[in-house]
């Protein structure tokens, strides 16, 4: 059966009708080969217009339809649905944009008409090479793997629970709660009640929809959105692993601390009574007493911000407030102790932080802005040498120093990233799907990264992210509903593929694998997003992005160049 193309020009009220001479368009288009009918309509997207199109397609026995109308952004989906209603494949419709990119930009009706003819011709020549594409539906498992049982993981696991959805919460250490649980006293001084976290942990432990796997590592995650096969192994053991299927993965694997010993600048581990935030937290957790190595109470304490910032090349954002909290803790409990805070840029960004800073100053904490600092001397006579912003040298003698190490990725992060096939940021943290537009997603559909695994975060930001990922999963992975992967994916023409594997390198989604036996690349259609980068890179023209094939685009080029 030969093609019977119907061309319909929408007047879009006066928008196109008055700017373009539609009768002339019809006259010019009608003689084109395979064009069976060319008609105009007042408003094709209206209910009346849609019914008109359905009737036309059925009555005229059309195989393809080209619509001279608005931007495909507006009504491509509307017209695809019309095609389905009329019994033809929705991909045998081509919407040609003669409104936004023609009628509205050319004041001269003659020019606009000529351009409209050119655009529509290009659409007609293109559609002759359209292939019907079938929408696919895949079963999706609604269960979720939450990787990491810290603040972010707990929040996500609990928020995700819902009937018909099971959550696997895997934590490599023996307990849920993560790093925050170690510093109850320090955090409660900041108004952060760890009791609430403990309550959440209890809720998780008693929730039958959550399976908690502590002291467990995730060994492998293979698959794609809606269908990831997970295997786990108990830490330090060979047997006793589990395997299960989930539809989505939330990575909440947390962070670690910059190793202050790696630079001599802070005298850490060389000079007694030089501590990290953690050491300090542990000390007051154990005895609630501030003690020097001599057993005496310190008289003056220097709080040194930005530990390792130079080496790391980024600001960890939360340590300023942590340090200020320590300063306040000391001043509240031991008003007699001198406290100096040596900071570079002070990160006081939330709406409450500025007040806290001002109060800290009122309490007598001495804030010194510096651009370089060195901790030297010896126990009992620690000397802090610093350079101010103006370049002046300064010196402080204290008997205790607490340094804030920056936050770094958790040790196993590269392995986890490799296992999940998601990229890392140059800093070593997980890379979000898009810095601005997809802050908790990743390049892999169905894999979300939340909390400090993705970069230094405050408690609040961590919880926001965990809740955001939960929202994404709730709206995309609905129990009992199938998922529809992208239809316009790339396909490999095996006869042309030389097996050079260039496409494997350029695909950000890891959608292409290499078939060793056949010596050709293979596209996983459930992962492919249809960007076409592989086709742009293929030296053998062996990749065909469906609906954007070389032939289809080439027809448009030819029409663009027609005299």
């Amino acid at each position, binding site marked *: 059966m030969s093609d019977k193309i119907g061309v319909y020009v929408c007047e879009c009220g006066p928008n196109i009708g008055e700017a373009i001479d539609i009768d002339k368009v019809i006259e010019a288009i009608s003689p084109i080969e395979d064009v069976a009918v060319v008609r105009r309509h007042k408003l094709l997207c209206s209910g009346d217009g849609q019914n008109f199109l359905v009737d036309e397609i059925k009555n005229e026995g059309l195989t393809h339809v080209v619509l001279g109308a608005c*931007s*495909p*952004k507006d009504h491509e989906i509307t017209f695809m649905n019309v095609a389905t209603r009329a019994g033809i494949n929705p991909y045998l419709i081509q919407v040609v*944009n003669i*409104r*936004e*990119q*023609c*009628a*509205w*930009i*050319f*004041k001269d009706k003659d*020019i*606009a008409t*000529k*351009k409209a003819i*050119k*655009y529509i011709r*290009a659409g007609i020549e293109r559609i002759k090479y359209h292939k019907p594409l079938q929408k696919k539906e895949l079963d999706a498992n609604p269960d979720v793997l939450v990787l990491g049982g810290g603040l972010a993981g707990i929040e996500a696991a609990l928020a995700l629970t819902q009937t018909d959805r099971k959550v696997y919460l895997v934590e490599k250490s023996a307990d849920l709660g993560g790093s925050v649980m170690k510093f109850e006293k320090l955090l409660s001084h900041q108004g952060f009640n760890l009791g609430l976290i403990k309550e959440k942990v209890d809720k998780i432990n008693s929730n039958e929809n959550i399976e908690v796997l502590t002291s467990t590592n995730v060994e492998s995650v293979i698959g794609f959105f809606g269908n990831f096969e997970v295997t786990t192994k108990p830490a330090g053991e060979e047997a006793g692993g589990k395997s299960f299927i989930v539809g989505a993965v939330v990575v909440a694997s947390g962070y670690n601390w910059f190793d202050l010993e790696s630079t001599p600048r802070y005298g850490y581990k060389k000079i007694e009574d030089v501590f990290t935030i953690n050491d300090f937290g542990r000390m007051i957790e154990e005895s609630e007493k501030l003690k020097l190595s001599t057993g005496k109470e310190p008289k003056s304490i220097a709080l040194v911000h930005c530990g390792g910032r130079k080496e790391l090349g980024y600001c960890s954002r939360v340590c300023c407030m942590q340090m200020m909290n320590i300063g306040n803790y000391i001043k509240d409990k031991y008003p007699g102790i001198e406290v100096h805070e040596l900071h570079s840029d002070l990160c006081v960004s939330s709406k409450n932080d500025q007040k806290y800073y001002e109060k800290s100053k009122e309490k007598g904490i001495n804030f010194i802005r510096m651009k370089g600092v060195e901790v030297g001397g010896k126990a009992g006579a620690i000397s802090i040498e610093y350079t101010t912003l103006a370049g002046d040298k300064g010196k402080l003698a204290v008997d205790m120093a607490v340094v804030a190490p920056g936050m770094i990725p958790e040790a196993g992060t590269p392995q986890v990233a490799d296992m999940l096939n998601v990229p890392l940021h140059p800093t070593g943290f997980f890379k979000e*799907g*898009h*810095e*601005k537009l997809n802050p908790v997603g990743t*390049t892999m559909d169905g894999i979300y990264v939340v909390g400090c695994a993705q970069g230094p975060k405050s408690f609040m930001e961590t919880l926001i992210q965990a809740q955001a990922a939960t929202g994404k999963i709730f709206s995309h992975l609905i129990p009992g509903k199938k998922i529809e992967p992208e239809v*316009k994916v790339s396909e490999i023409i095996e006869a042309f593929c030389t097996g050079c594997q260039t496409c494997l390198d*350029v695909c*950000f989604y890891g959608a292409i694998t290499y078939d060793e036996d056949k010596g050709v690349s293979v596209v996983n259609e459930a992962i492919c*997003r*249809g*960007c*076409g*980068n592989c*086709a*742009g*890179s*293929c030296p053998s*023209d062996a990749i065909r*992005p469906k609906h*954007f094939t*070389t032939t289809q*685009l*080439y027809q*448009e*080029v*030819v*029409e*663009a*160049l027609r005299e």
Partner: protein
Amino acid sequence: MSEGFEPRIVGFFCKWCTYAGADLAGTSRLQYPPNVLPIRVMCSSRVDPVFLLTAYLRGADAVLIGGCHPGDCHYIEGNYYTRRRVALLKNIFETLKLDTERLRLSWISASEGPRFAKVITEYTENTKKIGPNPAKNKIFI
């Protein structure tokens, strides 16, 4: 400038940024020359340099690729690949003694309607100035 010369420019615009920017130019009723025929692609990285070369050798007076700004690609990094490919193609143009002024890559976001109109206007004006494509019908691939 050749008298009455109206250049024919082939434009490949990514669906997410530049094509949407072109739509915005239309919605804002900005006026620009009618010399570009827009071809919509999912991502600028879909544009095989061979398309550009073919368009040029078949007589396009200029070719234009429009993509998302660096860092804003809907497909994470597609536009970086495009940038490299266009840079490479410019090299090839130079080697073949073709006019690199007839090849342009522009970052135009979905919110930059005025920029879209400006790029098209400037590019068209410039192409008018340098005249018709001399390679037309001389080389075939």
